[in-house]
């Protein structure tokens, strides 16, 4: 006779697995989107960035219109976009006499207009769409999962929605195609050029633009790029120097994740795992369009060394920070600062989060200065060095590491200072310092706590 617990376990699994699926499904059914959809409501402007979830048609005009009628009327209502369309591939008359009109993507009924999503584009551009969707199996980071990543982040749900609209403008790369091919020209040539990427791929945590333009590849592009023939596909022999898309979306494959090794730099990976070795050979093959394979391998090994060194510095900083946390020397301590409004675990058992796995990625507000120093070291200096190493901009590597070294010295000194201060307070005041309500009150802090 089999022991009873086998049957009990099986029975529990039979109940719990469907219940889990049901719960996840239910959690996505609220007014917002994603796993916390019951806890937030979108700002009305967010409909343009996440049309699938939030877009509502205008109802100011009624009637059904043909494509020609749309063009006729909008030539005076919004002349710029009609001009764009006229110069686009969509306006070209095909062999069978057809054109892609406004109504083919937006619908005919003016009170039930559609904001085109990738699925709409897929009706004709099925291969590109399939490549794009295929990214999902590689997990984050990827373009295709970018919107889920945004709305499933607690700090997105926690903050006022008008503030975090700034996030979903870039994360909308998952939910519409005009992030790279701007409307209503939708030009492949435009998306092949590095500038197409930099509206999102710029700024402190991902200076892809600055590092690329500072590299030898980028310098050649800036000097000569305007005269290259951008109508050519992104493959060997067509371009004198690579662009973002040449390397990350080689031969026009709408997929940036299949060669991704370092995962945007936000977690430490083993570059020598069997999977990553296979991916690395794909990079070497790509570099070999211009460079010798051995030379390329050497460059990539240089990046391994840079990353190893950077992670060493980050772990050191994390180690320094964990000690004042465990000795309750951070001020404000976790319970003295506003908890993340939706984080009930954090509200009940406050704990300062340090490092990627504890959620440091979201800890750029409601924290003490020393924690923010570490966040900036990790998110700005470290990731800047990473991008410099990946894109061949040596000065960014140097600058990033210099900044990390300086941050490390400051963090170490600050930790010592906090310890001395805390010990002096215990000795002379008999207690740790109470910051009272300083961190829990204020114009914005209260609004964020009460309205979220």
């Amino acid at each position, binding site marked *: 006779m089999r022991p009873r617990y086998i049957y009990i376990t099986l029975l529990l699994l039979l109940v719990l697995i469907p219940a889990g699926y049901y719960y996840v499904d239910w959690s996505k059914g609220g007014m917002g989107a994603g796993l916390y959809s019951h806890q937030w409501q979108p700002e009305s402007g967010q409909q343009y960035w996440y049309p699938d979830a939030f877009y509502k048609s205008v109802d100011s005009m009624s009637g059904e219109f043909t494509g020609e009628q749309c063009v006729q009327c909008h030539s005076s209502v919004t002349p*710029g976009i009609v001009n764009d369309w006229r110069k686009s591939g969509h306006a070209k008359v095909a062999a069978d006499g057809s054109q892609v009109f406004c109504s083919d993507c937006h619908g005919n009924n003016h009170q039930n207009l559609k904001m085109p999503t990738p699925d709409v584009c897929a009706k004709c551009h099925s291969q590109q769409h399939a490549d794009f969707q295929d990214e999902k199996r590689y997990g984050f980071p990827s373009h295709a999962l970018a919107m889920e990543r945004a709305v499933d982040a607690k700090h997105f749900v926690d903050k006022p929605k*008008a503030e975090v609209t*700034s996030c979903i403008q870039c994360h909308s790369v998952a939910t519409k195609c005009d992030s790279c091919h701007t409307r209503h020209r939708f030009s492949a040539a435009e998306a092949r050029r590095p500038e197409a990427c930099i509206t999102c791929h710029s700024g402190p945590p991902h200076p892809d633009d600055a590092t690329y333009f500072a590299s030898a590849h980028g310098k050649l592009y800036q000097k000569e790029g305007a005269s290259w023939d951008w109508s050519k596909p992104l493959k060997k022999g067509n371009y004198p120097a690579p662009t973002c898309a040449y390397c990350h979306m080689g031969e026009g494959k709408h997929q940036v994740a299949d060669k991704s090794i370092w995962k945007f730099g936000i977690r430490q990976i083993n570059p020598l795992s069997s999977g990553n070795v296979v991916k690395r050979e794909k990079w070497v093959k790509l570099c070999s369009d211009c460079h010798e394979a051995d030379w390329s391998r050497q460059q990539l090994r240089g990046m391994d060394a840079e990353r190893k060194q950077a992670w060493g510095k980050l772990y050191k900083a994390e180690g320094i920070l964990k000690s004042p946390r465990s000795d309750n020397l951070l001020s404000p301590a976790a319970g003295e600062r506003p908890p993340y409004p939706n984080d009930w675990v954090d509200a009940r058992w406050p704990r300062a989060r340090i490092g990627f796995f504890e959620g440091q990625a979201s800890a750029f507000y409601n924290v003490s200065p020393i924690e923010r120093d570490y966040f900036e070291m990790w998110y700005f200096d470290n990731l800047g060095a990473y991008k410099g190493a990946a894109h061949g901009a040596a000065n960014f590597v140097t600058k990033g590491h210099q900044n990390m070294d300086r941050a490390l010295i400051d963090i170490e000194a600050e930790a010592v200072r906090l310890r001395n201060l805390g010990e002096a307070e215990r000795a002379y005041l008999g207690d740790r310092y109470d910051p009272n309500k300083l961190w829990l009150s204020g114009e914005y*802090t209260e609004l964020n706590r009460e309205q979220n």
Partner: protein
Amino acid sequence: MISAFSMLSNILLLSTILWMTPAMAADALVTGSYQNSECISCHEKDNSLLISEWRSGSHGKAAVDCVACHGTDHQQSTVRARENHSCNQCHGGEEGSVSHSYSTSKHGIIVRLEAAEYDRSKPLTAENYRAPSCAFCHFFGGHHNVSQSMSQKKSAADDQEARQQMRWVCRQCHAPRYIRELETNGRKMLALGEMKLLEAAAVVELARSEFPAEQLTQIEMLYHTMQSETIKALRVGIAHQSPDYQWWHGHPALDGKLLRIKGALTDLRRKRALVKTQ
């Protein structure tokens, strides 16, 4: 009332565009090099509106004269003022927040990529340019009062008018509801930034009331940067549609300054408490 006014101003703007068109072409025919006083004396006769618009805007008031934007070569004068770098030279350079928030926005990107195709001797209309340059929005239709479409620091009525004017510029390409939604969201996003500034101001006030000025250097510097640079980065990020400036140079940067101001006050108070015991 507002909509009647806006229609009227739209008609006025349109007629200005149509009226400017032949004038621009004629400008390019005049050769030679001119200085500011010569520009003014001639154009006051030929187009006094232009001069009075310039005088009443912030450029005229700050003595940013004709040649600053147009250069001295008459044949190149219009084309030159329509180039973005004419504005960048004063407005923070290419890496400054004003210019960089624009040049990394989709508008800025399109202009960068297609600059070679644009004929800048043509008037600033959507027919002639696929995406707006600085002058396209801020001197739309060729008017010369750079302040008239800036909504900042104005009376409520002037602000309404300025917003109405800028909406009309957006309307060249974008749908009315889209403009309204982005403007509404942008205003809320800015208001949230201003709340962070207010929260910081209250902490700075506390610090000033508790400690002498010589102990407040760090707090004052942080607050000054927040007030002058960080909120500006957010504002231009919103106005120029740059997610990077709205976010990384904007809101989280304000968060960082705010928490450091609170941290600095906490430190001063802790030291004071210790000193009292000794």
